[in-house]
């Protein structure tokens, strides 16, 4: 497909890549610089600060008016619990759809396919009212609680991931469990001891993607959480920087860098795995 380019051709190529890198890294470099810049004002920022400082990072963890550690902790808790439960519940459901033949199986699969097309946030009004109702009966599971938010996320995660895992389970030959079933193991034991270990790659993909998705979710969290101590990072950071670009840019940049690093540290080493999941296997690498 490619032939050896001329010198001009090579210069053009590297120039284009250079421009693309400038575009890609422009905002990243600015907040990196802002996070080390002593000023908090966006206007006074220079790309190469004269006297770099770690003050903004220190402030994130020491200033009680910036509940940054709380937000990170909330986010990790909500995303961690959501992704682990998602993996387990979806694996269970996917296994049933893949291995058992029962009445309503086809209808169930079709239903899953339809439901996962519906973006959950379209029903935000209903979810908001539902969680307020739940709070009346079970205060720890309702509006403005983390278990409530997790429950909402779990519901939204079921459709696609069950469907996605079922496809993978279908590729694991039935013969691997059959000997165990003959030896008297229940299907559940066969699932737990034989199929799950074999399905580790897909479990990892779902776990990581669900973690990143939940970590980055903004809409539902902003509707369902009230009070700065309950916020996740997305809601908290928006609350923190809104209308305060002239006063909090430095601290915000430090928080943004840390918040992004957490995800970059997962994403970049595992990019192949994640991308194969995000493109739904449509692209072979």
């Amino acid at each position, binding site marked *: 497909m490619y032939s050896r380019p001329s010198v001009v051709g090579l210069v053009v190529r590297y120039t284009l890549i250079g421009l693309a890198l400038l575009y890609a890294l422009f905002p990243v470099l600015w907040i990196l610089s802002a996070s080390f810049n002593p000023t908090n004002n966006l206007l006074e920022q220079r790309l190469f600060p004269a006297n770099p400082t770690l003050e903004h990072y220190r402030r994130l963890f020491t200033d009680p008016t910036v509940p940054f550690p709380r937000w990170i902790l909330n986010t990790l808790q909500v995303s961690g619990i959501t992704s682990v439960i998602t993996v387990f519940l979806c694996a269970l459901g996917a296994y049933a759809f893949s291995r058992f033949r029962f009445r309503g199986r086809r209808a169930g699969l079709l239903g899953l396919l339809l439901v996962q097309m519906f973006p959950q946030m379209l029903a935000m009004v209903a979810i908001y009212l*539902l969680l307020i109702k739940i709070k009346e009966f079970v205060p720890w599971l309702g509006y403005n609680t983390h278990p409530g938010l997790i429950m909402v996320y779990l519901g939204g995660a079921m459709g696609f991931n069950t469907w996605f895992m079922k496809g993978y389970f279908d590729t694991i030959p039935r013969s691997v469990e059959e000997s165990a079933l003959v030896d008297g193991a229940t299907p559940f034991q066969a699932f737990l001891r034989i199929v799950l270990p074999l399905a580790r790659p897909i479990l990892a993909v779902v776990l990581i993607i669900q973690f990143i998705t939940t970590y980055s979710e903004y809409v539902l969290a902003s509707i369902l959480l009230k009070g700065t101590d309950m916020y996740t990072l997305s809601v908290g950071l928006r609350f923190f920087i809104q209308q305060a670009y002239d006063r909090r840019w430095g601290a915000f940049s430090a928080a943004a860098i840390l918040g992004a690093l957490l995800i970059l540290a997962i994403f970049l080493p595992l990019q192949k795995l994640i991308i194969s999941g995000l493109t739904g296997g*449509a692209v072979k690498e």
Partner: protein
Amino acid sequence: MAGREVVAQGAKLGLLALLDAAAVWAAVSLLLRGDHLLLAVLAAGALLLNFVVLSRRAYPLRFLLPGLVFLFAMVVYPIGYTINVSLTNLQTGNLLTKSQVIAQLEGRYYLPPDHATFSYWAFRNPQGELRVILLAQDGRSYLSEGSQLLPVDLTDPRFVRGTDGTVVAFDDFTRLSLAQIYQSLPALERLDLMLEGVHVRLATVREFGTYLRKYEYLRDVDAIRDLETGIVYTAREGYFTSPDGVRIEPGFQIYVGFRNYLDVLTNPGIRADFTRVFGWTVAWSFLTVFFSFWLGLVLAYLLNDPYVRGRFFYRSLLIIPYAMPAFISALVWAGLFNTDLGVINRIIGELFGTKVRWLQDPMWARAALIFINVWLTYPYMMIVSLGALQSIPKEMYEAARVDGATGWQRFWTITMPLLWVSVAPLLIGSFAFTFNNFTIIWLVTAGRPAVLGAATPAGATDILISWTYRLAFEGDRGNQLGLASAVSIIIFVIIATISAVNFRFTRALEDVSRGV
């Protein structure tokens, strides 16, 4: 083995028994509260659970149920609820049910012109109980006893008199000073005392008065009669309305059929907003996908070139916008595009000596949003194209080269058609995702700048989903939950259509590629 099985069975049944006991307890408390709907839900849930655990036929359900519970509670039920709300007039002013409104109206009173007045003394005991002594103009006096007013003889020695001859205390109650009365006004206003069938309530800070009930509900004609004026207000379109069209606030919820949908299509103000928002939503999705696809494809082409060195390194850097959490990128870009403080305007200022009003001018705000979203999206397109490019068999190019095709010809006749097969469905998927990408819009512009004279809170950069959010939750024009739900359903129909087309398209393209 057998022993372990017995233990496992026992544990299972024990757990079930415990859950059932909890369900029975919850059922009793619901029954006592009279909440029959929830009771039915609970009963159905408990029966299903027992069936699933005990029946062999329900074995697959044991695997499915845990996930289904969440799916039903948090997706399926909310969808149904949204459809339901979209058929009602639920909005600020019509949030209560009819029976709640009737109860509220029947608790209202008016002061008739010929009302009697009482001066009063208010008292409190250490437990915080509030009681009053009322002095009628004819010299009689009354003491409140619960919600009753009973005649009382103030010469009784239990009433302690002060120097001016007024009662200052009785039993363990002491009289409130004027300052304390002001503090206790809400509690005093809540007092509703009965005196020989007449309501006596606080009229002014210094007086109680005899009140009459203002409204009476007429069950058989479903109307409210104003007992003061005699006007009958019939239930019409969510309000009790008089013959000359005067409405009593608040209104109540009713089903309005497809009126919310019709409003979107025919009400001039709402339709104008819808059309504008819809047009921008489509433009925003299309332009994002268009620019990011071509940028991604060009980069993929460059990074696939074996004569370019350091490809893996560039690729890892170019992927960063995709790997960053989108909400962080959006907030950062919003800062960089800030009109007065932002870096971008500073650079433009130094180059051209002017300022672009990025987030205040509708066209510039839209341009900035697309610029930002292309930044967020092109790495995905790049990765996808890279994968597709690599899966094109090399032999096809060799054959073309032998036939004497130029580079451009090879690109348009071999690369693009084959790339298209695997990429087109993902582009449509990306279009559908961008269509509902609330986060970017909300965190960069929040739908602003506002559009002057708009009938609903729809800003110049609002997409359908953010418009829905503002209809439902933005307070300054009230919460139009019914209309917001109708727009949600319209969005869903659009997305479902796109997805259906996508399914067809994918299959058609697969057929095409098989024919190659």
